């Protein structure tokens, strides 16, 4: 994270966004749809990376932030008839509010206890969704009706079920979140977070309030993950309890580890790569979880810095 080349870093990110924009016109339909989904899930991974990569807090319960956005937006449309932008903001607000509560409680613990506590809160959230099945649809989930998934600006309206609109909306969300992360990471606040990760005691001694900084990081991370969940509900039209299960707390961890923790583009690379591997291997085996398991173990054993983390260490010291 050297000071030398902010231009290089911004150019790289702009280049990635431009490349993804061009891809929309080149890709065949199947990959086009898949990439839209990956972009939304990469936002989830970026939210996770905010906390895990930069603050060093390993949460095993981020599925609850994703699914609170998912349900917050989805149920607002289904039951309350909210418009798309309002439901999206509602989903984010739910995520931020939940993150404040969880942060206040979970930050009293550290290390292994933090992981278990976040996992348990996520489990409670999952069970609550199942318990209130009459509103949430339980493990069957619910479909967000197609007519409701329309963005209206005055006279023009955009149908979010249209593949191109969907891809572009996902790309806009992804780009905004990517630039926000980049800005946070390069800011004073971002440096304080890294300082907390490296040595919390020393940071406190230097006069920083580590608790409120960590709490703010959880709220930002929760809001980003909720934004991803809300977008998922509105773009793909389905809310279901499987998104709140433990597996969806593990997946962002896997994506971030694979792409490289504490790198701004790592979450995208990790999500993309994992989906690609799953897609290729699904031709030979249905044992998806086996691949996830082997990938997790192989990563922590041989490749703890992930793809971009290793690149940064060897050649690209300027990579944010």
């Amino acid at each position, binding site marked *: 994270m050297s000071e030398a080349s902010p231009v290089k870093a911004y150019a790289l990110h702009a280049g990635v966004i431009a490349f993804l924009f061009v891809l929309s016109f080149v890709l065949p339909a199947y990959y086009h749809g898949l990439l839209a989904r990956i972009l939304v899930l990469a936002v989830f991974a970026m939210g996770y990376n905010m906390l895990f990569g930069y603050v060093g807090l390993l949460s095993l319960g981020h599925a609850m932030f994703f699914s609170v956005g998912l349900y917050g937006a989805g149920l607002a449309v289904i039951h309350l008839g909210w418009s798309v932008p309002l439901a999206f903001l509602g989903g984010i607000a739910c995520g931020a509010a939940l993150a404040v509560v969880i942060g206040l409680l979970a930050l009293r613990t550290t290390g292994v206890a933090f992981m278990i506590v976040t996992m348990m809160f996520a489990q409670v959230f999952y069970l609550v969704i199942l318990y209130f099945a009459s509103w949430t649809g339980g493990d069957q989930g619910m479909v967000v009706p197609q007519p409701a998934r329309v963005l209206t600006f005055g006279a023009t309206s955009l149908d979010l079920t249209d593949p191109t609109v969907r891809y572009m909306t996902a790309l806009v969300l992804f780009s905004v979140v990517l630039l926000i992360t980049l800005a946070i990471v390069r800011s004073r606040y971002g440096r304080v977070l890294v300082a907390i990760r490296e040595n919390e005691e020393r940071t406190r001694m230097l006069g920083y309030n580590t608790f409120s900084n960590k709490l703010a990081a959880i709220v930002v991370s929760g809001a980003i993950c909720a934004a991803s969940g809300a977008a998922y509900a509105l773009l793909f039209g389905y809310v279901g309890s499987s998104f709140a299960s433990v597996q969806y707390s593990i997946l962002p961890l896997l994506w971030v580890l694979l792409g490289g923790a504490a790198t701004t583009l790592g979450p995208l690379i990790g999500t993309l790569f994992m989906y690609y591997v799953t897609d290729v291997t699904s031709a030979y085996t249905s044992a998806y979880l086996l691949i996830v*398991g082997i990938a997790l173990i192989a990563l922590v*054993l041989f490749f703890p810095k992930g793809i971009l983390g290793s690149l940064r260490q060897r050649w690209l010291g300027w990579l944010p």
Partner: protein
Amino acid sequence: MHFGPHLLLAALEGLVTSAVLALTALGLSLVFGVMRVVNVAHGEFFMLGAVLAWAITTAIGGHPALGFLAALVISPLIVGGIALVAERLVLRRLDYNPEATIVATIGMLYIIQQLALTFYGPEARPVEPPFTYRILLPWFGYSGYKLSVIATSALLLVATWLVLTRTRIGLVMRATQYDSETAQAFGIPVDRVYGGVFALGAVLAAIAAVLIVPISQAHYLMGQDPLLLSFIVVIIGGLGSLRGTIVAALLIGMSDGIISMFFSPTLAKIIATLLVAMVLVFRPQGLFGTAAR
């Protein structure tokens, strides 16, 4: 049935749950206490024990007691062997770093679960109990096998406690738990102790599973509930405290049996999980444990 006998039945069912839970949680607690490793794959060792028990009883055939006894010996040994290999190949190389090992054991969880699904299949399969004697109480008949599960578990718990407190092996384990560096300096092969403890934890889970499988059936997802409940027990009882683990297992098992007889099981789980998370937040040393050093 009147309320009294109903409660008695719930309490008996709760005791069976507690007995099996205490064994499973003891395994988790030992691994955490001695190695400081949170073994998320613990529930899968439990599941593996049950699935292997089914495979062994089916392969042997003949009188159910014969197959069951063989399963009770062979299945935990195989599971312990698998755990030992996993420990040597993965956990040791991670130098028992708490965060890395948690990620690695999550990986093991997925691998074991998927392999069980591939080779065993998605069906739930029963194992015949070794005997089907029913004890007739004035209000209802109760399965003698379930009572024998309680007795066996109690016996095994006492045996483990004796090993831990009265033998050289136990002394070595406690020394490692107390201060691994000093233990190493006094010539204790800490590395081998870790391997043994991890295998022992898996063996305890597998024994618990073999005991419960004639009551509940073997299924590839059956490890999830025991994992969560064991976590709860270990946390309530105080991380790494043996006595606390057993008391908490009784508490959780009994209340689980009684609550889920009168309320929705999902609601019971929500309340229990939330309460435990709060215990961990506000009293991290557990309800019965002493403050962490």
